[in-house]
């Protein structure tokens, strides 16, 4: 694969922001959006292709983390409210 092009980086940025907005917790959501914006902005003048690739790989890994966590926290939140009618007194993780 060729070195990451501008278009790929932008697509990654967009994907990460879109995914981050789906966090159900206010604090995580705002942190993720803010951090992604600041990180991409901070690195926008990097020229070295190796370094760019490293950063892109890290961003891809973080995108995976966000995707997994959004899904986890979504099910956990649903688990808590859906439990109520069939509750057997299970302690639920209470997701913010």
């Amino acid at each position, binding site marked *: 694969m060729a070195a990451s092009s501008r278009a790929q980086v932008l697509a990654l940025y967009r994907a990460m922001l879109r995914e981050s907005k789906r966090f*159900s917790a*206010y604090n995580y959501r705002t*942190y993720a959006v*803010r*951090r992604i914006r600041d990180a991409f902005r901070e690195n926008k003048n990097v020229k070295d292709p190796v370094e760019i690739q490293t950063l892109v790989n890290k961003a891809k890994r973080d995108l995976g983390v966000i995707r997994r966590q959004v899904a*986890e926290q979504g099910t956990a939140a649903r688990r808590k*409210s859906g439990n*109520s*009618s069939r509750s057997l007194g299970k302690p639920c993780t209470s997701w913010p």
Partner: protein
Amino acid sequence: MGRDRCSWQPWLASDAHPNGHECAKGAATLHHGFPNAAHQDHRPRPSPETGKGAEERPGCHAHGATHHEAHLDTVEAAWLGLSVGTHGHRHLRGIGKCGPRRLYVSHGKRRGGRSRPDESLPERRAALPGAWGPGLQRLRKVGSASGTMLLRAAWRRAAVAVTAAPGPKPAAPTRGLRLRVGDHAPQSAVPADTAAAPEAGPVLRPLYMDVQATTPLDPRVLDAMLPYLINYYGNPHSRTHAYGWESEAAMERARQQVASLIGADPREIIFTSGATESNNIAIKGVARFYRSRKKHLITTQTEHKCVLDSCRSLEAEGFQVTYLPVQKSGIIDLKELEAAIQPDTSLVSVMTVNNEIGVKQPIAEIGRICSSRKVYFHTDAAQAVGKIPLDVNDMKIDLMSISGHKIYGPKGVGAIYIRRRPRVRVEALQSGGGQERGMRSGTVPTPLVVGLGAACEVAQQEMEYDHKRISKLSERLIQNIMKSLPDVVMNGDPKHHYPGCINLSFAYVEGESLLMALKDVALSSGSACTSASLEPSYVLRAIGTDEDLAHSSIRFGIGRFTTEEEVDYTVEKCIQHVKRLREMSPLWEMVQDGIDLKSIKWTQH
């Protein structure tokens, strides 16, 4: 209506059942049209009517909902003013004043047989508005038929609102600040107002501004922990199979991550159950090992309770401990420290960043002094690790305590750094299979230490960004409060200060009352460990704060996830409530009139 309507219409036949359903006609069920079986049937059944909202409340069953709801509607509307007990619901009497909409909430619990967590009932009771009386009043004012309709409409509105699907979308700006939860948790700080049904669906939670007490898990940390909670569950000390090997590999990787954050060697990191255990190991372990030759320890008056308590227990064993006083700024006097070191001093323990006032001690200088006098130096760095740069070699630290849940890691894990060159010998407190180099026996909790390692790695990457941001937010908070309110004192040295921990004393306002007024914000006045007692914090006393200012101190914590809007909201509410409380304060009036409070002679009554 879609419900079984009770055929008993008391407002038309007012003499029918003056005291409810205990009538000679027999079974209480028959005369209001429900089949006997249904009434007596207390088996929990999922109700098909989700619109009730009753089924959202755990512990309810269908019998309760239809039975009570239809029944009580009519009772209320008839202005019979029947109390809970008189018309056959004595089992609910203990619930106290419940609005009709809420009666069925407790039903399941009272009936026993349902397994409900015990804490649900008191919480719900606390959340109940006690609207029975007012509810009735409201109905009395309205006409009978329209009364029931009003009641049912309001109730249906409430039910619909509660069952609204919890969505991830933020609500209107100010409401959205109080975090959204996908549940109806009544243990939120905001009691639900049932008469005016909640506008948006899920109950909102307070803003979290208490990061010195604990921090939320960073999503990256949780992501690292999950595989070890689900699939890779082996014991890291099992040497014979792949489960053990992979757990051990994860544990060693975590050790490396923790070590690289503080500039140590991985062999010098021992995992413990938290900073308290680490402090105990450091202080008691070192003191006891060198017991034969060295009998003296030095610590400060502003240390964490666990350090002070360990020292106290060592005093009972025959050691001598010097508790160094701190200056008004919260920082110790290095000359006093030098003077206090005796030939038989084994350990000096000074915390890096204080958890109550955020003061940074001059660790590098203390390290230098201690190493020149050949005394071991321990620092409780629970609040400092991952937030300010620390290097155990540059700062000549021999022992360091690390806490997982202060750096966005999991609770229940921590670490202690014990220097190997020159070797610091520590007597183990926990005996067992010799894990962790014999210093802390016991299975190492792989998921937790993986979380700790991940938290340390994330902290290392984010330290600069977080520090800049937190400093900016901290400046903003302090400036905005100080410029709008007079007589606010910041406790602790403003220069040698970690910006994320701000302790402010608001004169002429009582701290607890301000905390209760700021009920939308999770704050604390002093450390969580001492918050149970009513005494002002010993740390504030040690820095010489006046008694009255010590009582009115609040600690604001700003962390990685705190937003600017949260800070602004907190500032605004704080200013508003302090002004309001000061308006009510007679001391404030006297001060406004120019009276010097210190010159007043208070008489005894």
